Structure formats: structure tokens, C-alpha cells
């Protein structure tokens, strides 16, 4: 790969449960930022409704 791109880094990261758990938490939090908390009071209502289902 070195010939293709000088600055391309290829790392090896062994699969690890903690990474998958951390990634799942991060993804859920980011979704919350984006889809619920960006909306403010409106988002909070939606959040409350979701809880009440």
C-alpha cells in the first residue's frame, strides 16, 4: 500500500468487547444529540413520549 499513498496508515486493532461496547454507547449518544437534544423542548417532549410508550 505504501506505493499507493504515502500518508495512509494501516493499523491492526484486535477485536475487543470493550471497543464494541464503547462504540455502541458512542453511537447511541450521538443519535441522542442529533435526534432528540438538538430539538430542545420539542425534543424533550418527544423523549418523554418515547418513555411513556
Amino acid at each position, binding site marked *: 500500500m505504501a506505493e499507493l499513498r504515502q500518508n495512509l496508515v494501516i493499523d491492526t486493532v484486535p477485536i475487543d468487547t470493550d471497543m464494541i461496547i464503547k462504540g455502541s*454507547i458512542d453511537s*447511541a449518544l450521538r443519535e*441522542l444529540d442529533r435526534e432528540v437534544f438538538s430539538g*430542545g423542548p420539542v425534543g424533550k417532549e418527544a423523549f418523554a413520549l418515547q418513555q411513556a410508550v
Partner: protein
Amino acid sequence: MREKADSELVRRQNRRIVLETLRGQGPQARIGLGRSTGLSPASITSISSQLIDDGIIVERHDAEILPEPNRRGRPQTLLDLDPGAAQVLAVKISIDGIELALADYRGTILHRGSSRLATYDADAAAFGGRVADEISGFLAEAPSPRGRLARIAIAIQGVADSRAGTIMWSPAFRARNIPVVEPVQKALGIACSISNDANMIAEGLDQRSRGETSAVVFMGYGVGMGLILDGKVYHGPTGAAAEFGHMNHLPGGALCRCGRRGCVEAYAADYGILRSAGTDDDSTPPPLSGVPVETMRKLESQARAGEPRAMEAYRKAGQAVGYGLARLVALLNPTRIVLSGPGTHAIELIRPHLM
């Protein structure tokens, strides 16, 4: 009306930028937040006070957060995510086991647990309900600090259909198309999503905030990819967007688990490597479940000991992944590629043949 809708959109977008910046870069003073986000001081003041009123962010004194030598000048007030704004739950389902972790809004893990959960012979229709029971049991034992559970993210080995909320295929299950999201949402009333391991590893990498393009290649029972485009994990419409393993490597080549021929995976997944080493018949169908770890370890030691067929099988695997990566590099110009998964146990046998 139009103007109102526009200003609402801008407000939403600005709130989102502020939250994403605090999440990606940690606590910041208002002035620093202005610099990082490009928002005006007036906007930062108004958005931050709204977010504080809404219970989403809090003010903290830098002395609480930063160690002495890192503090400069007079004490500063920093803005940070409020840990009590919400909680999220991560669930990892693998062969005969489930792991759970509850985290606060800042991402700090509050409670962890794991238990045995029969997967391989699980009944597809009943499985989602079993997962919901596991979650309920775990939550009943968890401490209850501030914040309500707002999202559940489930990670599985194999291929997930994130739109349908199902496990399409997994080495952990004999069944196919197992509904998970709907039964969990129904039982718990909390928004839930499902994704595969490679995507979740991509989500967890810390380069996102820098807006880079990079890829996580998963190697093991299959070959998968989590793709980060300009700092965002790309899921595509079904969550199976970056099916790197099913890119064609050799037209008419080895039989893949997907039924087609010549896919990268047919050479580089565990079953592909094992098959190349054992037979010249590349039409031998892949096993229904994964190849046992011990079998792969044995093959690795044979290759390390210089057994020609085993070495050749790893060479072919490296070549298949390498050609695939070369196409990816030409197409997307990533700055980083991360190889991950149980298959990387044999990475030193594969890496020399990537190019």
C-alpha cells in the same frame, strides 16, 4: 411562517453543533467553544443558556476537571454535557452470550453485566423477547442515578439489517432474519437500534471528530467493513452499506457464503482460508456456522511452520483484502485503515501480501 421555520432549523443545527463539539472535544469555555464551532459569541451565549435550562449541559469550574499544571490564568467556567441528561444502554450479542453496559450522557459506564444466552439453536420468533427479558433483568439490578434510559444500541456478530431491525445472518445463530429491535422496543418502550460489530468499532474510533475518512476492516467468520466518511460512520439504507467482503475479487472464483463467486470474503474469511488450505475445490460450500477458533489456530501454526498449502492460503487472503483495499483507497482516499476482528490473530501471515 417560512422565516420562523428557517430560524428553528438554524437553532436546531447550532444546538447540534455545540453538543457534537462538547461530545467530541470535551468540556470547553464559551470562548473556546466559539472558536471550535465557528459560532458567534452571542450565539454561544444564547445556545448554551438554552441547553443549560433544558438540563442537557452544565457549567463546571475548570479546577474540578483539569489538573493544576494544565490550568492557566484565572479560573474558568467550562461547559460540559450533563451526565444526568439521559442514559444509554449498549448490548452486545455473541455466540451464547449477552453483555450489557449502561452509560450516562457523558458516556461514563454506570453498570455492566453479562450472562449466558443460548443463540445457536434459538427460535427466531422468540429470541427478541429473550433479549428484552435480559435487558429488564439487568436494568432492575442497575443503580439508578439521575437520567432516564433513552436509547438502546445492540451490536451483533454478523450482518444486521438496521432498517428492519433484524439479524440477517450471524455465525452465532442457525436461524436467519431474527427480529430484535421491534420486540425490544415493544417490551421496554425505548428506542432501539441494531448494527454489526465492525460498524460499532468504527463508531468507537476517536478520529471521527477530526472529520477523517477511514475504514475498519473486520476479518474473521466473514469480512466486513465499517466506513467513516468525513468523520461520520456511513450506514447506508439498511446498515449493510460497506459490504467490503462481497466486493468481487476474482470473477467466477471461489464460492462465497452469499451464494456468488469470487467475493473477497470467499478468500479471506476463516472459511475461505481454511478451504484454500484444504482443497483445490473452491466450490465447497462454506460451513453454516463459524469455523472453530482452535481450527484456525492450528492452520496458523502450520503456516508459521512453513507448511506450503497453509502459507498459500494466507497469501491468497492477503491478496484478496489488499486488492479490495487498493480500490477503496483509489475511490475514497482514506487516511487510515484499521484491520480488526479475530482474523487479525494471523495478521503477520496476511499483511505482507496486502500489496
